[in-house]
């Protein structure tokens, strides 16, 4: 192959020292996720609950059009915190969020470890914080698409279809609760995914880990709850803890008779553990002692 055909030329520009280096990392992560097989299909599937709930908002305000279907009820659906709780704590939504994490996130660090890309990243003026921020933003982007965007959309649709601000007058804190829960869920799932991704150099193993930890925690809860009939065992389950905190933040009744603060503490502890793992595993060079 011919070399130096054009010759080397110096670059005349100046490097930006006050930039946000996590941006290109996040942008690349999002772009590569969309290139993965089945990702668009999975993302579409994950939006199904949002579509159904949006239809629910519409139906709740167009009750006359559906009089035949709901003869004795004055309301087909009540749009209140329980409505939002039903959306955010649905097993279906959490399952598809997990699958999106598997497709978009399992390889985010595992692939970099496998292909020795970390030393290229850290040969740039890049802090570990910048690298992790970029990766976290990639995952949070997809998770917020499934949590924050539909939540706010439901409120907007409700305001449009009802033609009044009654929902916001009755529950003025609701948008903040939705935003709060969306960021908690996105932050937790992103940290959980990145930590498990950093534990393996193989994206498949990381995917298995992501699914196994999530479902095994729920299976253990089911087993212990079946034996002891004690709802405290809900603290063993990632899914149950997420449902507890979601319900509490949305002002609805938590599904299990356990203080939701305990669930929040469990999630916080898991997030701290994930942060610790990431700090240990993400390095510019692998040092074998």
């Amino acid at each position, binding site marked *: *192959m*011919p*070399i*130096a*055909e*054009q*010759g*080397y*030329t*110096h*670059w005349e*520009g100046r*490097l*930006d*020292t006050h*930039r946000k*280096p996590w941006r*290109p*990392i996040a942008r*690349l992560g999002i772009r*590569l996720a969309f*290139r993965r097989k089945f990702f668009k299909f999975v993302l579409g599937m994950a939006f199904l609950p949002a579509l159904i709930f949006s239809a629910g908002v519409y139906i709740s305000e167009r009750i006359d059009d559906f009089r035949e279907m709901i003869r004795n009820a004055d309301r087909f659906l009540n749009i209140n915190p329980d409505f939002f709780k039903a959306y955010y704590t649905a097993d279906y939504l959490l399952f598809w969020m997990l699958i999106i994490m598997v497709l978009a996130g399992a*390889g985010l660090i595992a*692939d*970099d470890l496998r*292909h*020795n*890309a970390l*030393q*290229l*990243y*850290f*040969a*740039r*003026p*890049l*802090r570990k914080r910048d690298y992790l921020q970029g990766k976290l933003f990639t995952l949070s982007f997809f998770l917020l698409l499934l949590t924050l965007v539909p939540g706010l959309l439901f409120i907007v649709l409700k305001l449009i279809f009802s033609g009044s601000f009654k929902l916001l007058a009755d529950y003025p804190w609701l948008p903040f609760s939705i935003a709060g829960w969306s960021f908690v869920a996105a932050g937790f799932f992103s940290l959980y995914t990145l930590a498990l991704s950093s534990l393996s150099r193989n994206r498949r193993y990381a995917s298995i880990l992501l699914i196994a930890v999530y479902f095994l925690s729920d299976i253990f809860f089911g087993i212990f709850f079946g034996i002891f009939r004690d709802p405290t065992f809900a603290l063993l389950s990632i899914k149950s803890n997420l449902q507890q905190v979601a319900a509490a933040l949305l002002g609805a009744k938590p599904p299990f008779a356990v203080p939701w603060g305990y669930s929040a503490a469990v999630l916080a502890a898991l997030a701290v553990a994930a942060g610790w793992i990431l700090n240990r595993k993400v*390095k*510019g*060079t692998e*040092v*074998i*002692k």
Partner: protein
Amino acid sequence: MNIELRDIQFSYGPVRALTGVSVSIGEGACGLLGPNGAGKSTLLRILLGFLRADRGEGQVLGHDIRKDPYAIRRLVGYMPEDDCLIPGMDAVTFTSYFGELAGMPRQEAMKRAHDVLYYAGLGEARYRMLETYSAGMKQRLKLAQALVHDPKLLFLDEPTSNLDPQGRVEILDLIKDISSKKEIQVLISSHILTDIEHTCASVVILNKGAVAAQGELATLRQIDFSLYEIRIKGEGEPFIRALREADCRVEETEDRVLKVYLPSGFDRRELFRTAGRMNVQIRHFVKSRTSLEDLFARTVGVD
């Protein structure tokens, strides 16, 4: 000086990797030479701030290696030894991505990526997925990503590993071109002596984590060694033994030429006196140019 290190010490747990390394590296291309495990890659990683020296201090392009690693990385391009890529990307996206991470504006990085890929000989293959690249193409790609932000200093870690002879020559020519005409200083870590000899004017030889020799290649060849090639007639063994007892290093080549390294201060006429004493005739006596291989063998103590 581009690189100035004083008394650098580093250990991987109980294993001492570098001991009291003090080097000064100036303009041009410099070779970092040493056998496997000598500490070359560790030294490069300390210079980049990947590893923190247990002791000692140093500067790269005027920036402290402990306090200011990010400023150093802005000015330095690094080509690692291992294969590095991000799956699912083509070469242009890959190269421009690392340009962006270095602080280049997005469009500039993309434009520059095309330029350096052409320069590295990947112009035709720049839209191919990286997973389909051969070993040689991956080496070129690593060089391109190291050059994309137009660094002042290039760290090349084993740049010719995994390359076929033709690919090796092409990469070495590129490195020579960069270091000689493009105002980019180059530090090449390698254990392949001919690579260093082909590209570098100065050399730092590491052995067992310590500096065994450093300086301009030409000077090192002249000062430290006097090498003579001798052909003799007569019984060679007693003559060779006598030279070795006089602290000369003697190697016999396949075509029965004796390569005699004289220690500094050794009078070459003493060779003839010894030959006379041992009843040996010297039929051929030529002062040889010390190759890097000779220098390396002498300093590191291996044949």
